[in-house]
């Protein structure tokens, strides 16, 4: 029996299918019936040859996953680490070793010169298992402190739609405004251009897409 | 284990722990009761004072029920003002007594609109081993059933308190039965350990003639409609047994 609500809007408690698909995100099962857990859109996809049904939520907080690219904001400096706000109920930790490959003397080095409260970083989540705070790394190319640019926040679920067309969007923004666009999984993106006015135009375009004009 | 009809303490699913009720042991109070259900222990005291009736019930007396789950009773109770658990028990016990008119408030008016008896029922938990609700209710009702108040004579606007004592105007003996749900099983009178693992609970206050005078579902789980009906039937049946342990209704002179 096929899904009754393909590409349709579902609410929590809506019956989505009676059992011939693998359950993906946003669903739960009682006996053989599969129900939606969130307000969202039902999607059918194939993962390793299996037909998977899932609900893409329209709203919701960002829960980090290992491997996610995120855009974080430094909110505090601790002993041996920075605390990073990644737009999630879970505050992330960036250890000192991510910025300093060799051990340093904390009393001699002013950490704020390297990464201060309010700075933005593009990082990757390397560990998160719900019992501890998420751990971030900068040790990859294209990761690091954002030296200039503008930050834009959108709901993560909306972002999931955007990410499908990520390559096109990045290309579009680059061609039209000469800006680099980095899209994080955590509902944030950074637009980096040569000057602020171009960044503002780029942001306007992205916002208009999200409002569906 | 529950599926076999056994509980950790050896009881059957519908078996209540041993109950003991001791009344009138605090001489300074007009009424008092010490109740034990298994290891759960609760004390209730009844005090009377003269006061003014509520404006929307000028010809009735007033009953005020208060409950405190004090640190004496358990390491999980912290000192401080009454919390949501204390308030819940007090209000459910109050409703069960009030709705059944167990204490006939119309007989506690002295000068309608001006003066009446205020009956304070204060319940204190002394040892928490589960099912404080039923223990508190049992203590409150037992204390009320055996309380003694002074008579009053009214001459014009003045009230004279006579030394002669009489019982409170009690017309019913509501019994409260709490049923816990663990998985698909309904267990009567959950003890502390059972309360820690139960999904939800439901309390029924049943009057002498088998009517319901209060219901309270508690805890963050749920019951199916069928379980609710089954629980109510358990409550009806068991309340009859428990009522035999209560003091008798005082005789009206």
């Amino acid at each position, binding site marked *: 029996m096929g899904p009754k609500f393909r590409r349709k809007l579902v609410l929590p408690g809506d019956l989505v299918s009676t059992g011939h698909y693998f359950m993906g995100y946003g669903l739960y099962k009682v006996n053989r019936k599969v129900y939606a857990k969130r307000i969202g859109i039902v999607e059918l996809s194939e993962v390793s040859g299996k037909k998977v049904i899932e609900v893409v939520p329209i709203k919701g907080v960002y829960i980090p996953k290992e491997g996610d690219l995120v855009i974080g904001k430094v909110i505090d400096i601790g002993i041996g680490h920075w605390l990073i706000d990644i737009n999630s109920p879970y505050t992330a930790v960036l250890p000192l070793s991510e910025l300093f490959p060799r051990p340093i003397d904390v009393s001699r080095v002013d950490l704020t010169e390297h990464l201060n409260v309010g700075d933005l970083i593009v990082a990757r989540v390397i560990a998160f298992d719900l019992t501890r705070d998420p751990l971030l790394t900068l040790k990859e190319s294209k990761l690091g402190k954002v030296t200039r640019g503008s930050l834009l926040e959108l709901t993560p679920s909306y972002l999931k739609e955007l990410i499908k067309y990520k390559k096109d969007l990045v290309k579009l923004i680059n061609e039209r405004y000469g800006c680099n666009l980095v899209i994080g999984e955590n509902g944030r993106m950074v637009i980096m251009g040569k000057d602020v006015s171009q960044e503002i135009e780029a942001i306007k375009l992205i916002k208009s897409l999200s409002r569906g004009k | 284990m529950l599926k076999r009809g056994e509980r950790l303490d050896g009881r059957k699913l519908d078996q209540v722990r041993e109950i003991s009720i001791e009344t009138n042991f605090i001489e300074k109070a007009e009424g008092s009761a010490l109740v034990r259900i298994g290891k759960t222990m609760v004390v209730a005291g009844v005090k009377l004072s003269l006061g003014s009736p509520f404006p929307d019930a000028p010809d009735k007396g007033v009953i005020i029920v208060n409950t405190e789950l004090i640190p004496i009773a358990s390491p999980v109770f912290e000192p401080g003002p009454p919390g949501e658990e204390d308030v819940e028990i007090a209000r459910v016990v109050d409703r069960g007594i009030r709705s059944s008119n167990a204490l006939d408030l119309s007989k506690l008016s002295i000068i309608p609109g001006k003066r009446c008896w205020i009956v304070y029922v204060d319940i204190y938990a002394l040892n928490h081993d589960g099912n404080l609700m039923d223990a508190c209710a049992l203590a409150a009702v037992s204390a009320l059933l055996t309380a003694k108040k002074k008579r009053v004579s009214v001459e014009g606007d003045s009230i004279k308190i006579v030394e002669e004592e009489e019982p409170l105007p009690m017309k019913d003996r509501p019994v409260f039965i709490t049923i816990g749900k663990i998985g698909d099983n309904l267990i009567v009178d959950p003890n502390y350990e059972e309360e820690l693992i139960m999904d939800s609970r439901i309390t029924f206050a049943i009057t002498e003639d088998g*009517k*319901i005078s209060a219901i309270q579902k508690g805890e963050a789980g*749920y019951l199916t409609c069928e*379980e609710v009906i089954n629980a109510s039937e358990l409550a009806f049946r068991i309340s009859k047994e428990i009522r035999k342990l209560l003091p008798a209704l005082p005789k009206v002179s």
Partner: protein
Amino acid sequence: MEKPSLLTPEGLRLDGRKFDELRPLKIEVGILDNADGSAYLEQGGNKVIVAVYGPRELHPKHLSLPNRALIRTRYHMTPFSVEERKNPAPSRREIELSKVIREALEPSIFVNEYPRTAIDIFIEVLQADGGTRCASITAASVALADAGIPLRDLVAAVAVGKVEGRLVLDLNHLEDQYGEGDMPVAMMPVLNAVTLLQADGLFTPREFKEGLELAKKGIMEVYKVQREALRKRYARLIKGARSLEE
């Protein structure tokens, strides 16, 4: 004060309703900008607004639960919501209702998905006309869905009462005050789960069973209004998402 007669000779209620008729119910979703989820509800003279914040970080940290979200609920009536001004300090009734409302909503929430966080539900009764706890639960459930919080189902609630010997659905203030019984019920219809059940007054075993059936009927109607309100709000938002593909 003389007790008014609550039923007309034809068996209709003072406001013209039949025994199994709900008051007009209206729900608006997402009206508060700062809250993660919100809803405004009107039912008869009841006016209730609910804001949901969360899941969010819990401060102080020692209150947090290691493997699930902490649900906190505050039910409060504004001083001007009732005939005689009510003292704004939380009353014992508000304390009890905050607890039972939380316990009515929590079973619907997948709390294990957000360990160490808090989900806060704030309910403010702007005007009260009987059945405010049921109205609050109904509105709060919609606000939780609006916040994107994973739910088993919506929770819908209604109060059944006894008026001059008859069971009636959705008590208003007068019927609650002068009637012989009041039984608020909340359910998650999909799971046939009762999450709130209280009673006050005298009910025979039969009245209790019939009352539950009557409540179920009312709950299904409330549930319908909740779902329509959410669909209406979100259908607009999807239109926006769809255009991305163009």
